[in-house]
């Protein structure tokens, strides 16, 4: 297609320094976000990648049986973790292709809690209380995924035993996961569901991890018709409250806003 030679000159708006400055500011902001996300994801992937390579090389050195007995389960855990990291990033970024697919069915929550707990690398003491027969009407894969993050957070960052209280409220099932620890800043609790929130502090402070766990749990809970929120505990520590449908077609209402509440 050829451009007309004699037509009216294309109109160009005069440059607006205010708009240009705003565009430049937004581009700089986007660039900062891009670097922050890459930094956090890179950090989260680096340790399991190094672990994977190292463990495979140990396997290749024909280790003795006791070493083998430790290395193989660690390899399995590490590869699972890499899979989960990738899925976490996709789901937290609102990519729908990795949302759980299992059809909802009645699932006994206590059984899933114990199964997930047994898969943690370093489980502390677990106390399950309340109604042990509590069921949720959810996809089993999504429930496992949510509980893995909530229990891993409690075991990693909490102090003392982790308590899981099960029950039913307002027609839904409620899972409360509590652990002790220091008094938490309400602002931190409120921002815990922000994607990559930890990234800002992870580079210079004590926080490891990618900062997608709670955003993922929120997205999965909402996908299942439920909700999740955090509450500071009196005397320190935190309780994560996961509300899930108990029967087919139900939702849990407003139970939590995903923030500190």
């Amino acid at each position, binding site marked *: 297609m050829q451009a007309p030679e004699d037509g009216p000159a294309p109109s160009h708006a005069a440059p607006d320094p205010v708009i240009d400055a705003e565009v430049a500011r937004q581009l700089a902001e986007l660039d900062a976000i891009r670097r922050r996300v890459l*930094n956090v994801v890179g*950090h989260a992937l680096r340790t399991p990648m190094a672990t994977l*390579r190292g463990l*495979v090389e140990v396997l290749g*050195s024909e*280790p003795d049986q006791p070493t083998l007995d430790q290395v193989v389960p*660690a390899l399995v855990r590490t590869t699972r973790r890499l899979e989960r990291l990738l899925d976490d990033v996709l789901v937290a970024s609102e990519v729908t292709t990795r949302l759980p697919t299992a059809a909802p069915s009645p699932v006994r929550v206590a059984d899933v809690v114990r199964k997930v707990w047994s898969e943690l*690398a370093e489980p502390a003491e677990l106390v399950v209380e309340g109604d042990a027969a509590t069921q949720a009407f959810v996809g089993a894969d999504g429930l496992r995924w949510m509980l893995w993050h909530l229990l891993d957070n409690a075991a990693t960052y909490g*102090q003392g035993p982790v308590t899981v209280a099960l029950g039913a409220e307002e027609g839904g099932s409620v899972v409360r996961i509590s652990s002790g620890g220091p008094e938490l800043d309400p602002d931190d609790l409120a921002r815990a569901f922000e994607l990559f929130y930890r990234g800002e502090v992870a*580079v210079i402070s004590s926080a490891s991890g990618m900062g997608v766990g709670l955003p993922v749990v929120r997205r999965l809970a909402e996908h299942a018709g439920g909700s999740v929120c955090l509450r500071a505990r009196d005397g320190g520590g935190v309780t994560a409250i996961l509300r899930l449908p108990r029967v087919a077609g139900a939702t849990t209402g407003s139970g939590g806003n995903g923030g500190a509440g």
Partner: protein
Amino acid sequence: MSDDTRVVVVDDDADFRLLMRVQLDLVDGLTVVGVAGDGIEAVEVVRRERPDAVVMDLLMPKMNGFEAIQSIRESDPGIGIVAYTAVAGNYAREQTAAMGVELVLKSGDPTDLVEAIARSREAAT
């Protein structure tokens, strides 16, 4: 009594800790005498084991590596310390340099770490 360099390994990742223990124990002249999962535990294990060197992760819950290094330095300046971290931004580089601690980036290959452990001992004595 063995002349091996006695090493304490600190990392909040249990499987990476396992890897380091296995890898470093395979190195002639090194013996891992203790492991810890956070800075608080690290300070306790170091106090108990009195190692020659500590391999310290930096980003950990409860007490981070920077604080743990400071604490160990104050109580026992003769212990060699290597910071071993997944990524190192300017803050980590500046802080470890200011503390006189060599920074090594995590890898599945322990060669760089083993060499840094040897240098940390020389620097601390």
